[in-house]
């Protein structure tokens, strides 16, 4: 088991007029090597939840177990560095975390903090930068002269360079153009295929359907559903009660079926859908 939450509670600013109960008894298990989506409304507790994964926030009650590092309200390991290396967290708009003079220096900042030597870090940095699609000509450039999308790639490379076992991304494609978003998600899929656990917070159900194996639905500080992706999108009424849209393709199948077709809901891509429709028409 990669990640395990046992009745985790989190309250912000407890005992003040600003107290806010953000997580209300979260139970969650995520297996190693899954690609998992985390969906839910703004304010449903997604960001609070993911910050528990690398102990930026500590539970106010309950227990969090990340790759056998156990954190409870009263007890945590004396240094959290080990955990932070295992679980890489990419915040929303991560381009705000860039600060070094050159891209190379910024990317090796993380690995060096975790004890890698300059040479080790540099060779990893070159590797991850080419993974995110930036060639060696970028190494010595300033991160501040890049475009928004490129800055984000550098920031994500900075986390990937730490070689985390778990990669958590908070809306990594927000504000990217469609091609940039697709490249980014393809990259996360490739990382997932090397055996790493990937968790993506997303509002784009098309992305969730085509890339993720499992979906966690959060609502009002609780995990309401944790199921396989295809299973979730069969619950049309439940999703509309949360005003979560269906993926385009699922919504299309749903409408076809309402008009007399009998097409499998779990179809994920256009080719299969076309085949299924042809099959139905020929019958």
């Amino acid at each position, binding site marked *: 088991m990669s990640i395990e939450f046992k009745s985790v509670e989190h309250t912000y600013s407890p005992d003040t007029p600003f107290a806010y109960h953000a997580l209300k008894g979260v139970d969650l298990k995520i297996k190693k090597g899954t690609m998992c989506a985390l969906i839910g409304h703004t304010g449903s507790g997604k960001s609070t939840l993911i910050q528990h994964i690398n102990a930026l926030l500590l539970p106010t009650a309950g227990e969090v177990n990340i790759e056998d590092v156990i954190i409870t309200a009263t007890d945590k390991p004396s240094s959290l*560095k080990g955990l*932070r290396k295992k679980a890489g*967290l990419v*915040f929303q708009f*991560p381009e*705000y975390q860039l*600060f070094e003079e050159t891209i190379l220096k910024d990317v090796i*900042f993380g690995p060096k*903090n975790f004890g890698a030597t300059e040479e080790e870090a540099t060779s990893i940095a070159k590797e991850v930068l080419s993974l995110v699609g930036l060639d060696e000509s970028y190494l010595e450039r300033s991160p501040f002269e890049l475009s928004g999308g490129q800055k984000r790639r550098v920031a994500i490379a900075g986390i990937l360079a730490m070689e985390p076992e778990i990669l958590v991304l908070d809306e990594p494609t927000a504000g990217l153009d469609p091609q940039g978003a697709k490249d980014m998600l393809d990259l996360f899929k490739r990382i997932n295929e090397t055996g790493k656990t990937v968790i993506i917070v997303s509002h784009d159900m098309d992305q969730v359907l085509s890339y993720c194996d499992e979906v966690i639905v959060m609502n009002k500080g609780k995990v309401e559903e944790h199921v396989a992706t295809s299973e979730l999108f069969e619950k049309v009424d439940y999703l509309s009660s949360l005003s979560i849209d269906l993926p385009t393709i699922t919504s299309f199948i749903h409408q076809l079926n309402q008009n007399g077709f009998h097409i499998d809901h779990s179809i994920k891509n256009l080719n299969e859908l076309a085949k299924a429709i042809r099959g139905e028409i020929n019958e």
Partner: protein
Amino acid sequence: MNNMMIGRYLPLDSFIHKLDPRLKIGSLLILLVSVFFDAGFLGYGILGLFVILLLILSKLKFSQILKAIKPMLFMILFLAVFNLFFIQRGNIVFQFWIIKIYDQAIIQTLYIFIRLVLIIMMTTILTATTKPLDLTLGLEHLLSPFKKIGFPTHEVAMMISIALRFIPTLLEETQRIMKAQASRGVEFSEGSLKEKILSIVSLIIPLFISAFQRAEDLANAMESRNYNPEAERTRYKQLHWQVSDSLAFTCVLLVTGTLITLSLI
């Protein structure tokens, strides 16, 4: 960072919260001056009781005031120690090697301690019971007589309200960047001096960049809505002086009057 109490508004419903911001600012100025009258321990007793009364009326908890005093504790102690050793008047009460402590020094040190604590308490009561925007509005009203001599009252008030407006935003931003860098292995509270400096750099540079970016965005947004600082403007929110304000002001004047009388006799 979440425990910052200085300058923070606490949304409670109390008598003090409802008072006119002009009155609160004016009273604070008067009380701040009266803290420095040498009215003896009796005078400080009266002022202290008055401030505690204000505290109770404003429904603030004593623990919240303690939180405001805590970050200043080092400065208070620093000043107190200096006074204790360097004032050389009155009789020696304690002597050790070259250190001589005089009775006047002890009294002055106590005074300074009391004064600073009172000042912090009073300013905290003002900021905790008055919304930042009301504060600026009050300030603008109080400064308006200076408009005649060409003082840019409105611009100053606008600058203050923008600055106040962005304090929580920048604090939030700071926290966000600290978290992002903590995810990259920075430990802000540990490590050698060199590591600490590097970790501060990793916080300050992104913070400055985003602050400049925000400033530019805000300036563009204001200009695109044709903001002109010199334009005559009316206000949706009007300040109304109530009977309770006059009453409160009388109390403040009474306390100050007593203190002045005590310091003269």
